[in-house]
C-alpha cells in the first residue's frame, strides 16, 4: 500500500512519461502469432481422444492465451503494482464466485454415496 503512495508522490516530481513504456510492434507481432498458433493447437487438441484431459488442455491453452494478452497487449507486464493487484483481485473474486458456487454443487451428493 505504501508503495502506491510513493508512486503517487512521484507524480508531483517532474518525471512524467518516464514510466510509460511503449511496447514495440515486434512484441505485438510475436504475441499475435503465438495466439494464432495456440488457436490452431487448441482446435487440433480437441480432435484427440484424451478423456478428462481434453477440457483441461483446452482451458490451459485458453489461460495461456489470456495471460499473454493481459501481459503484453494490455501492458500489464509493464504496468504498476496497482494494476497487477487489480487484475489479481478480479481473478480472485471470479474464482470465489465460481469456486464457492460449485462447492455447493459438488458436495450436494455427499452422503448419498
Amino acid at each position, binding site marked *: *500500500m*505504501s508503495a*502506491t*503512495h510513493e508512486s*503517487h*508522490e512521484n507524480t*508531483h516530481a517532474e518525471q512524467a512519461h518516464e514510466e510509460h513504456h511503449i511496447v514495440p510492434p515486434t512484441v505485438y507481432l510475436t504475441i499475435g502469432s503465438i495466439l494464432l498458433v495456440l488457436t490452431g493447437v487448441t482446435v487440433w487438441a480437441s480432435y484427440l481422444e484424451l478423456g478428462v484431459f481434453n477440457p483441461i488442455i483446452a482451458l490451459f491453452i485458453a489461460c495461456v492465451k489470456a495471460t499473454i494478452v493481459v501481459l503484453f497487449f494490455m501492458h500489464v507486464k509493464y504496468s504498476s503494482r*496497482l494494476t497487477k493487484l487489480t487484475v489479481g*483481485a*478480479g481473478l480472485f*473474486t471470479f474464482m*470465489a*464466485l465460481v469456486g*464457492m*458456487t460449485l*462447492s*455447493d*454443487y*459438488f*458436495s*450436494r451428493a*455427499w*452422503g448419498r454415496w
Partner: protein
Amino acid sequence: MSTIVSLPDQSTATIPKVNFITKEHGILSWLLTGDHKRIAMLYLASITFFFAIGGALAGLIRLELLTPQSDLMATDTYNKVFTMHGVVMIFLFLVPSVPATLGNFLIPLMIGAKDLALPKINLLSWYLYVAGGILVLYTMAAGGVDTGWTFTVPLSTHYLNTNVLSTGIAIFIAGFSSIFTGLNFIVTIHKMRAPGMTWFRLPLFVWAHYAASILMVLGTPVLAIALVLVILERTMGIGVFDPLKGGDPILFQHLFWFYSHPAVYIMILPGMGVISEVISTFSRKRVFGYTAVAFSSVAIAVFGFFVWEHHMFIMGVSTYSTLVFSLLTMLVAVPSAIKIFNWTFTLYKGSITFETPMLYAFGFMGLFTIGGLTGVFLGTTGTDIHLTETYFIVAHFHFVMVGGMLMAFLSGIHFWWPKMTGRMYPEKISQLAALITFIGFNFTFFPQFILGTLGMPRRYAAYPAEFQVLNVFSTAGATILGVGYLLPILYLTWSLKYGEIAGSNPWQATGLEWQVQSPPLTENFAEIPIVDHDAYDYEWLEKKHEREAVTIVG
C-alpha cells in the same frame, strides 16, 4: 479549548459569497455539473424523494398488518406493496444513501482533491440512478410487481405476469449507477490524495467507503448478470433457471446473493464510516485503534464475499457447504464487533458532547449491535431453520438497515449539514427527532423479533389472529417512527433559509473538509493542502488555531 474563542465564530461568520452553490446559476448548471458536491446534492434530493415513497409504502404495509385479515388491500396488492417497498428502499435509497450523498460530497474534500477522479462518470451515475428510479416509478404506475425484492425464480420467471421486466431493467440500470460510484471512489482514493495524505492518515470514513466501493465494483455485476438471465428466461425461455428444462433455480439464488450479501455491507460500511467521524469529533478524541477500525472495514469487504449462502440454508443446498458458509458468517461478524468496541472505547477519557449527530450515533451503536447479534442467530445453521423466513429476519434487517444505516445517514446528514449548506440545523428539535426516531424504531421492530420467534412468516398479507397484538405495537411504533423521519425533512428544509450560519468548522473537527469554507468552493481548495498530520489529530487542530489566533490578533 480556549483557542476556539479567537476563531471567527458562528455569530460573526457569514456565508462566503463564492461557493459551489452560488458559483453558477440555473437548472442546467446543476443538471450538467461535474462538481461532486452538486452531484451529491442532486443525489440527496432524489434519494429523499424515494425514501418518502418507500416510507409511504412501509406505512401501507403496517396499516394492512394492523388486522389479521387482508382487509385494507387485496393480497396481490399487499405483495406488490412490500416488493416495491423493498426495491425502492434498497436499490433507490439505502445503497446510494451515504456513499452517493455524503461520500460523493466529502471524499475529495477529505483527501484533499479538487474533485472525484471521473466527474463525468459521476454525473452519469446520477443519471443512471434517475433512469432506474423513473423505471421503478413507471413500474408502480403500470401496476407494480410482486416478486419480493429477491426475485425468486421460477416465480419471477414463469409464474407472474406483473412488471418483472421493467423492474429488472430498472435495477440493472441502478446497479450500474452504483458500480460507477464505487469505481470513482476507488480511483479517487488511490490516485487523488493530496501530498502527505498517506493511507494511514485517511479518515476512517474514506476507508469505509473504499471497502464498500470494492463490494460495489465486484459484486454488482453479478446481480446484473442474474437479472439479465431472469430477463432472458422470461422473454426467451433459455432454461438456465427453469426446473422443467433441467435448470436449477437455486443457481439464481447463488448469483443473486453473491451480490446481495455483499450489498448489505455496501449498505452498512459507509454508515460505519460516518459513525467513526462523529464519535471521534464529539468526544474530541482520536478513534481508538485506528488501524483496527480501518482494517476491519476491509476485512468485512473481503469476507463479505464468502458468506452468501447463509441466505439459502434451508433451500436444499449441500449441507456440507452450509457448514463452510456458516463458519465464514461467524468470521465476518467479528470485524463488526471490533468496530463497536473500538467506538465505545473512543469515548473513554474523551470530552463528550451530545449534539444530534452524536445522539444518532448512539442510536446506531445500540440498534446495530442488536441487529448484528440477531444476524448471528440467522448465521447459525441450527437456529436459522426456525427463524428464517419469519419476522425475525424482517426485524434483523430493519435493525441493521434502518436502526444502523439510516441512523448513520441521519447522523452524517446532521453532522455535515453545516458544511454542505453553510447553515446549522436547529439543535433542540433535531435532538427531539433523534429521540423520537429511537423510541419509534424500537416500538416498530422489537416486537417483530418476538413475532418471528413465535413463527409469524414474512410476506404475509393475512396472519393468525394471535399475532395481532404485537403487530399493533409495531404499527403504532411505525407511526412514531414516521414522525421521527418527517421532522428532519421539515426542519432541514427550513434551515436552508433560516438556519444559523455555521462557519467553516462548527464542530471543531479535524478533517480536511472542515478546514475549508462552508459551503466549499467549487474547486474545494484554493491551494491543494499538504497533509502533515494524522486523522483525528486534535492537537494539530489546536496548534493550528493558536497560529491562526496569532495571525488574527496580530
